[in-house]
């Protein structure tokens, strides 16, 4: 479904991604794990079109997307929940969700309303607070909003960047359950996480990144047992 072929991304003179290649198949949950500064978020931004790669190519459902503008990529069905949630704090919860459906045509109104109800059903707390400004929500609620907002575009594939960041263990569990549910309902998932244990526990496959390169790949269960991974990312 998503193929990343040898992309190289630079920040000025800094070579941030070095020949990164990986793929995600339809229906999978694939994780990208690694330490701070390994290039995980850069990879996500490049897929979504916020950054561009100097060489290499990214294809989504057979179509090259590496030269497309971000809003066109969303329209193709590839949505992202960015790191740090990035909800629009000056808009209400409901308006945030409607911004998620921005690419959908106006005559899709009834379907949009239906999806809104689905998000509210998945996250009842958002329904309670739908008229509140998003900036007044707690961290966990904002993460739910960020996920709900991305789902409003009806993505075929969802990119999630550090959804567990700054959340309590109970909330992390809740968010990960939700990710699994979204996957079961037919959305392919690419997950970036520092919480490697958690990520691997719900993933089918995973890639390990270090200083801008992918250094390991395999089935999630294999990586959980891999000594190198255990030592570096799972705390022994």
């Amino acid at each position, binding site marked *: 479904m998503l193929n990343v072929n040898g992309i190289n991304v630079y920040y000025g003179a800094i070579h941030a991604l070095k020949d990164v290649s990986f793929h995600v198949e339809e229906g999978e949950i694939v994780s990208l794990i690694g330490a701070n500064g390994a290039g995980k978020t850069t990879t996500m931004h490049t897929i979504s079109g916020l950054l561009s790669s100097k060489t290499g190519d990214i294809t989504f459902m057979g179509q090259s997307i590496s030269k497309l503008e971000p809003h066109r990529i969303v329209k193709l069905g590839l949505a992202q929940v960015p790191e740090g949630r990035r909800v629009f704090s000056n808009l209400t919860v409901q308006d945030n969700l*409607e911004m998620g459906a921005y690419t959908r045509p106006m005559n899709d109104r009834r379907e949009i309303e239906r999806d809104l109800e689905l998000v509210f059903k998945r996250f009842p707390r958002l329904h309670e607070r739908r008229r509140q400004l998003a900036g007044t929500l707690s961290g966990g609620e904002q993460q739910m909003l960020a996920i709900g907002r991305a789902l409003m575009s009806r993505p075929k594939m969802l990119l999630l960047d550090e959804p567990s960041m700054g959340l309590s263990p109970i909330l992390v569990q809740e968010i990960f359950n939700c990710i699994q549910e979204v996957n079961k309902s037919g959305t392919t998932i690419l997950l970036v996480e520092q919480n490697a244990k958690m990520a691997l526990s719900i993933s089918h496959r995973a890639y390990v990144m270090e200083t801008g390169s992918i250094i390991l790949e395999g089935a999630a269960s294999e990586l959980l047992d891999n000594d190198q991974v255990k030592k570096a990312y799972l705390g022994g």
Partner: protein
Amino acid sequence: MDFFNHIINGLGLGSIYALVALGYTMVYGIVKLINFAHGDIIMVGGYMVYLIMVKWGLPIWLAVPASIVICAFTGMLVERVAYRRLLVHNAARISLLITAMGVSIFLQNAFMLIFGTDPKLMPPLFQAEPFKLGSFELASTTVINIVVSVIMMIGLNLLVNKTKIGKAMIATSEDSSAAKLMGINTNRVISFTFAIGSALAAVAALLYCNTYPQIKPSMGNLLGLKAFVAAVFGGIGSIPGAMLGGYLLGVIESLTKAYVSTTLTDAVVFGILIIILLVKPAGILGKNRKEKV
């Protein structure tokens, strides 16, 4: 009751400042650019009315919408030609600012070449009897200014808070990368913001020409600067702030003229700018935004 009269006159003048200040504040809110060419859009609006009504002899109901539409397109064109590449490539703020000054110089000189440097007299646009309220008599221009500006602001508030494109403007001004990830074509939103700001400037131009029936290529300089002061006064980036700042500035100017000195009004206005920047740099309704690292 002279005092009351001066306040009302100030609000009439402030209406023009407020409409222009909205353009500054909206553009600043969305791309963090002080668009110094914004004042010249007023000049473009003035000359368009002159061209259509005086030169071509066409009626006012044609001149008004045509001037508004032409100004909106001029604003979009300026953004597309002069600013877009700088914004896309994340150029330094100072480059944008210098470009804006360049655009301002270009527009003024272009209109000087086409229409000459001498001021042109405008015909009265909206003729009306003085407005009587009990023992008060208000100039019709003052009443028109206030009514039109209030209608424009209600319209703008509905546009920004109730429509999809308006909410996209709020989203883009808060976090343009996140807006892009939602599928918002931020370039189009920016373009739309310039169009709306410039259309409001065109309305301000109509009110201005109706109040002071004379136009010249440099007319946007002082008016633009004062509106900029109004925007900073209210809190740049804040739409209600620009409105409040515009009206307040008009009233302050009117009271200064009446009770202090006519020659000192501009000194008072820019003195206020200096005091705000020293005491409350974010303006009356502005929020202190933390710079993201």
